[in-house]
C-alpha cells in the first residue's frame, strides 16, 4: 500500500483529482455523470490503443503506425459493412474481421522488428506512410457514410449496459483482458522481463523475437477493436480522422508512468494517463479556452514527467557505478 502511494500512478491520480476540483469550480457542468461518461466515451479509442501501446513500450519498442492501422481497419469495416446482412451475425463478423486484419498488419511490424531487426520506429514509420497512402487511394479521401451501414450496427453503436455505452465497455474489457495477460500469462511476464533487462532475459532463455512479434501483433489486435469503437462512435469512416492520434496514444502511455526506454508500465497507469488527457481537453473546452492550449498543456506535462523520470534513472545509474574505496 505504501509502495502504491509513492508510485507514479498515484502522482497522476493526484493531478487528475486536483484538476477535477479546479474544473468543478470553473464549470458546474464538469462534475456531472453525463459529462464524465462523455469524456471516457470520447477517449475510448485513444484508451484502447494506449493499452496496446503500453505493452510495446514496456518491451522498449514503439509503434507510430497505430493510428494508420486503425484507419485502415475502419476503411475495411466501412467497405465490408455494405455487404453484410442486417442481422446480429453482422456484429459477429465485424468482431472477427476487424481484429484479424489488425493482427495481420501488426504482425508485419513485429516480424520486421524481430527478424530483420530494424528499429521499431523505422519499421512503423514506414508502415504508417504505406497505410496512409493506401487508405487515401482506396477512399479517394472521402467519408464512408452510415447510410451504407446495416441498421444492426447502428443499434449496436447506441447500445448500453447499466447506462454505460458499449464503446466504454470495449475499453473496459480491453483493459481487463490486457491486465490479465500481463499478470497471469507466461507471455505477459516475458514482456515485463524483457523490458526489465533484455540481456538477462536472453540469458534465462526467453525467446526475444517471439515476444516482440507478440506485442506488435497484439497492438494490431487492439487497433482492430479500436476501429470498431471508432466506427461506432462516429458512425462514419473518415480516412483522415485519426491523423496524428499516435502521438496522443504515446503521450497517454508515458503520462501513465511507463518508461519510454522499457521495463516499466502498468495498465492502470495508462488508463489514468488517458483520463488525464481527456479531462484536460474537456476542461479547456468547458472553460472556453482555445483548444490549441490543450496541446501546449499536454506537451508541457509530458516533458516534465519524462525529465523527472530520466533524472531518477541517471541517479540510479550513478549508484551502480560506484567503486568500493578503502577507508
Amino acid at each position: 500500500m505504501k509502495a502504491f502511494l509513492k508510485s507514479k500512478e498515484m502522482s497522476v491520480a493526484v493531478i487528475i483529482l486536483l484538476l477535477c476540483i479546479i474544473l468543478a469550480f470553473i464549470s458546474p457542468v464538469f462534475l456531472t455523470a453525463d459529462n464524465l461518461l462523455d469524456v471516457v466515451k470520447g477517449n475510448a479509442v485513444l484508451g484502447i490503443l494506449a493499452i496496446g501501446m503500453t505493452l510495446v513500450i514496456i518491451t522498449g519498442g514503439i509503434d507510430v503506425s497505430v493510428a494508420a492501422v486503425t484507419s485502415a481497419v475502419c476503411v475495411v469495416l466501412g467497405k465490408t459493412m455494405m455487404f453484410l446482412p442486417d442481422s446480429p451475425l453482422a456484429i459477429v463478423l465485424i468482431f472477427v474481421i476487424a481484429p484479424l486484419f489488425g493482427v495481420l498488419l501488426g504482425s508485419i511490424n513485429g516480424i520486421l522488428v524481430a527478424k530483420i531487426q530494424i528499429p521499431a520506429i523505422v519499421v512503423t514509420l514506414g508502415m504508417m506512410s504505406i497505410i496512409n497512402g493506401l487508405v487515401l487511394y482506396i477512399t479517394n479521401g472521402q467519408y464512408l457514410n452510415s447510410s451504407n451501414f446495416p441498421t444492426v450496427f447502428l443499434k449496436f453503436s447506441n447500445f448500453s449496459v447499466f447506462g454505460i455505452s458499449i464503446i466504454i465497455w470495449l475499453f473496459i474489457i480491453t483493459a481487463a483482458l490486457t491486465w490479465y495477460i500481463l499478470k497471469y500469462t507466461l507471455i505477459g511476464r516475458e514482456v515485463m522481463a524483457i523490458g526489465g533487462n533484455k540481456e538477462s532475459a536472453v540469458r534465462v532463455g526467453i525467446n526475444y523475437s517471439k515476444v516482440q512479434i507478440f506485442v506488435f501483433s497484439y497492438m494490431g489486435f487492439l487497433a482492430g477493436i479500436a476501429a470498431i469503437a471508432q466506427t461506432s462512435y462516429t458512425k462514419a469512416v473518415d480516412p483522415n480522422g485519426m491523423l496524428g492520434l499516435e502521438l496522443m496514444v504515446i503521450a497517454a502511455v508515458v503520462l501513465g508512468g511507463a518508461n519510454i526506454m522499457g521495463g516499466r508500465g502498468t495498465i492502470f497507469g495508462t488508463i489514468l494517463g488517458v483520463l488525464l488527457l481527456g479531462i484536460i481537453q474537456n476542461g479547456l473546452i468547458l472553460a472556453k479556452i482555445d483548444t490549441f492550449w490543450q496541446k501546449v498543456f499536454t506537451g508541457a506535462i509530458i516533458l516534465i514527467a519524462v525529465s523527472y523520470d530520466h533524472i531518477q534513472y541517471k541517479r540510479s545509474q550513478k549508484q551502480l557505478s560506484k567503486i568500493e574505496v578503502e577507508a
Partner: protein
Amino acid sequence: MSEYLLQMLNISKTFPGVKALDDVKLEVKKGEVHALIGENGAGKSTLIKILAGVYQPDPGAQFFFEGKEAKIRRPIDATMRGISIIYQDLSLFPNLSVAENIYIGRDSDKHSWKKVDWALMEKTAKKALKELDFEIDVSTPVEKLSIAQQQMVEIARALAFDAKLIVMDEPTSSLSAGEVEKLYEVIFSLKKRGISIIFVSHKLKELFTVSDRFTVLRDGKYVGTYHANELTEEKLITLMVGRKILYEKNKEKAASGKTLLEVRNLAKEGNFKDISFELREGEVLGITGLVGSGRTELAQAIFGINRPYKGDIIINGQKTVIKSSEEAVKKGIAYIPESRKTQGLILRQSIINNISLPVLKKLKNKFLLINRRKEIELAEHYIQSLDVRPPLPYRAAGDLSGGNQQKVVIGKWLSTNPKILIIDEPTNGIDIGAKSEIHKLLRGLAANGMGIIVISSELPEVLAVSDRIIVMRHGRIAGELGIHEATQESIMNLALLGQKGKVREEAQL
C-alpha cells in the same frame, strides 16, 4: 572419469584477430569449490561464457557433464542441465518480484498462454530461499534490494533449477566485509550438499578461504590445476604472471623536465581517494591496477568529464578547474578512451574526417567554411608521421586494422597539440606487432617533450612504456614504482595485496 562433474577439454576460442583461449582445460569435481584465476584478459570470462552456452568453442572441444558428453548451444541448455551462472552484473529483472526472478525461464518456448501460477511460483521461491536461510518478502521488486540480497536471489534461482554446478563470477566485488562472510557460509552449505562451485575472483585471500583447487589461466592458455595446499599467494601470483617476455622493458632514461601536471589529494566519492602524483615533461607515467580500481575514473576526472571531485589539479604550476572536455583540450590535455570503436572513432568516415574532427574550428576560412586543402594536409601529415597503413586518407577508418585505427585516434588527438596525453588501454584488441609499434610511438612523443599517462591492465605493456608506475587498488594509490625496481610480480603484489615487497597476510578484510 566419474570423479569429475564437469570436464571441459581442448577448449579454444578464436575471435576475429585474437585467440582468446588456446587449448584450455577445466575439470571440476563433485562438491568442490574450484577457483578459476588469471590476470585481466587471461580468458576466464570467455571460458565461463562457453560453459554458459553464450559462446561456442572452436571445433575439437570436448565437454562432459556428469560423465556424459554434453552439448551446450544456448544458455537454456546449460540451465536445464543444472549449470547456473551468476554473472558479476547479475541476471535479474529489476522490475519483477523476487519470486518471479527465481522462477523465470521455465517452459519458455512452448507455453506462451499458460497461466502463470503465482502460488506455485511463490512456493518455489520461498523453498529455495529457505534452503539458503535467507528471509525476504518474495513479492518485493528486486530493484529495492541491496546487491548482496540480489545475489542471494540469484543463488536461490540456481537452487530452484536444481543446479549441480554454480559459477560465481567475482561474487564479492560489490559486497561489504560482513556480506562476504555470509556468502562464504552459503558457499560452504552448498558444498556440503554436493553442489560444485566455480569461483572466479581476483582477491587471493578469499580464494584461499573458500577454494579446494585452483585452475590458473594465462594469456588464454592453461597453466595448471593445483590443490590449495600446494599453493601460496606468492606462488599463485608467479603462476598467473608467468615468465613471459613479450616486450623489452623500458630502459631509456626519462628527461626530467618541468612539471606539467600535478594532482593533489584528488578524491571523488565512490570512485577514488587520496590521489596525488605529478607528471613531468618528457615522461611516460604508467597507471595500472585491476579493472575497477578507479583508474579510468581518475583519468576522466583530470579530463573534466567526471565531476565534481575534491582536491586540486595543477597544470603548468597553475591551479585549474576543468569543467568540460573542451576546456581540457584548450589547456593542452588529450584523453584517448579505452574503446576506440565507440568513443574514439567515427568508423564510417574517412581518416581525414576523423583526424580533423577536434580542430575543425581552426580549419575554417573567413567564410566559415572548412578549408578542405588544409584538412587533407593535416591528415596526410599524421598518416606519414604515425605511419598509418595503408596511407590512404580517404579510406574509411573502419576499414583499417586495429593498430592503424589506434594510430588514427592518436593522430586525431595530436592535431590538438596536447602537452599532456592520457591514453586508456592503448593496445586493447591489437595484435602484438602493432602493439610494440604503438609503444614506440608513445616513447617517441615523450622524447619530444610531451607528458604521457598510460593506463593499462597489461603489465608487460606498462613495463615497456613507462618511466614510473602508479599502481591503484580499491580507488587508492597502492604504491609507486620506478621502472628500475618494477617487475610484473611487484606490480601484482601492489594491485592484489596492496603492499610492496614480500607477500604477507592481507591486512584488511
